[in-house]
């Protein structure tokens, strides 16, 4: 039974890799560019995003084909081991990158399946990536796969495959997106979404339940929309000074993603803590941030101290 479970992982991981690569290639052919901020490449400077995305796509293609070709007798041994280890490492790195992406750019999708993966990174996305890493890990050391010798063995493999596909489907936000596209649905960036619907979704959320006590007035100080997000600002107070509670609501029909922050009303500085704010993730990956800062500095794009940056619109005469 355990062997059968391990055998199923090879085609499953290979198909996921090839599917991800195909979706990314589809995005390239549709937009003609890979510079767009989607997935963990959004963590890198603009000029590195294209080459990085192409590299990831090539690795996925190579590993996907490699896993299939080395599954049987052909390439058994070291080649198969390298491919499976590579797939495992890829998903481990992807999981870590998604953790970081969720913490630093919570508005960006994972990009795992190109345009299908534009919803913000959620726990489900992280769990899927981790599950695939475990799946790839379980194939290391597995002997060459042979066709099932009996119909019972074939049925067992199919049942395991179906069960795992269901689990992956549950963990994949892209599935809903794909189903929407079977019919015509306007992209969220172009969809007219009434403010009342956004406010209703916000008031039903756990953020509202936990933070509404901080709100000083029932009337929002400002409301605006940018792409798929609507921002709602309420006046608040924080340690005897005027503050603003800012909510960002993803414009989705059901259970929209919501983020919140408390900022100083005068300076716009984010205030360090929100009493009762839900944690963004399970793990504290603050130890990764200095690495990112260093990488950005090496790339020549680390911003200098911008404490003096004024809040006004830039003027030509300032240049």
């Amino acid at each position: 039974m355990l062997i059968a479970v391990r055998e199923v992982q090879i085609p499953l991981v290979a198909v996921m890799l090839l599917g991800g690569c195909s979706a990314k290639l589809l995005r390239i052919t549709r937009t003609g560019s890979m510079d767009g901020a989607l997935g963990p490449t959004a963590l890198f400077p603009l000029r590195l995003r294209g080459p990085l995305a192409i590299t990831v796509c090539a690795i996925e293609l190579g590993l996907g084909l490699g896993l299939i070709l080395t599954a049987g007798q052909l390439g058994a041994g070291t080649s198969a081991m390298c491919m499976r280890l590579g797939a495992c490492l890829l998903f481990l790195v992807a999981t870590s990158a998604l953790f970081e992406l969720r913490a630093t750019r919570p508005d960006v999708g994972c990009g795992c399946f190109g345009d299908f993966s534009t919803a913000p990174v959620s726990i489900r996305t992280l769990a899927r990536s981790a599950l695939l890493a475990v799946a790839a890990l379980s194939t290391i050391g597995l002997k060459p796969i042979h066709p099932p010798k009996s119909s019972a063995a074939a049925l067992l493999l199919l049942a395991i495959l179906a069960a795992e596909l269901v689990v992956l489907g549950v963990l994949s936000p892209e599935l809903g997106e794909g189903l929407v596209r079977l019919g015509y649905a306007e992209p969220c960036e172009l969809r007219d979404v009434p403010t009342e619907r956004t406010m209703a979704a916000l008031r039903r959320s756990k953020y509202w339940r936990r933070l509404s006590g901080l709100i000083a007035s029932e009337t929002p100080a400002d409301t605006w929309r940018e792409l798929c997000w609507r921002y709602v600002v309420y006046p608040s107070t924080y340690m005897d000074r005027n503050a603003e509670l800012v909510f960002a609501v993803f414009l989705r029909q059901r259970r929209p993603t919501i983020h919140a922050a408390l900022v100083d009303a005068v300076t716009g500085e984010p205030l360090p803590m929100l009493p009762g704010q839900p944690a963004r993730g399970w793990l504290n990956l603050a130890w990764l941030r200095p690495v990112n800062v260093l990488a950005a500095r090496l790339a020549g794009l680390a911003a200098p101290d911008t404490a003096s940056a004024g809040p006004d619109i830039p003027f030509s005469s300032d240049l």
Partner: protein
Amino acid sequence: MPSARADCSCCDRCADAGGAEGATAARRRFRKAAIFRPQSEAAYRGRRPTTAGVINGTGSLVPGNGFANPAELPRTVTGTVLDVSPHVLVVGEIGCEQRFILTADAVAWRGSLLEPAAVRQGDRTVIRLHPSNRNVADRIWANIGRVTGIITERSATTLVVDEGATREPQVVTIQPRHLGRILVRFPTLEPGFLVDIIGLRRGGELDGMIPATSQPAYPANRLPTPPLVSGHVPDSISGSATWHEPRDEPPGVLGVAYPALDPETGCAEDAAGRPGHGYMRLPYLAVGSVLRVKNDCTGKDCLVPVTRCASMARLFNDRCVTCGTSPRGRIADLTLASFIALGGELERGCFNATITIGE
């Protein structure tokens, strides 16, 4: 002669173009930065989020990370000519003068290209400074004006043009010697049709001289149905970028009027019964959102904030042919300073552009 009507209303998204608009844009950028940047990181760095940073007086932001690159983008000065000689141009007010050296390469425009010394005292000028020297004038436009909108009235040589619910109607006078050139590109100078003309400002009127683009074949109230868009909107969108006169905006603002602001903010254009959507289906943004605008002809690009709605630009389905042929539709209506900073020539009216949203 037709007279311009003076009543016009304003709305939240088309807020006044003075300091309030800039403050709104800046506040929204900081609030958004606070949401999409972990608070622990902000505290860790102990400073204001940088994604919302703007270029400061010392110009310390590096290329690609700020709103503009001070080392590469041309700067713009606007002022009234006090004196001009073959080598020096003096603009400004009495007691607050700015002197600019005129090089042999400097060119002026005053209805046509001419020597800078031909600019007259009292002319309202827009001066592009040399990238390497703030004291050298590279290009001068004298009394240049532009009217973009819907023709509401027409007499023999005069048009009254509606530029949107938040702007005063404009009177355009077309002299017979310029009429032929304008009719080539704008064959239907009748009420209800769109017009976009560049010319010389004479008081409150525009002396129309150059067609800024080609006229769309449809009346403004019969906009073609926009194509259905499925999937996700691409991050980069190409089209035509134009400029508009400052009017009620402070001159020198680096910003862009965007054709697709969120209709939920309640725009005066919608209240006036104009089409809800423009020709292009662009993703919805708000005042304060930031775009990267790239001039495809010069390769220059910079980040500019959305400062107002482009209620007229969204009605046009024209192409820009400054370098090659752009896709149909106007994607950005830049302030005068932004247009020049990105390498645009005002008298040409547009440049082929690509905007990137969400950086």
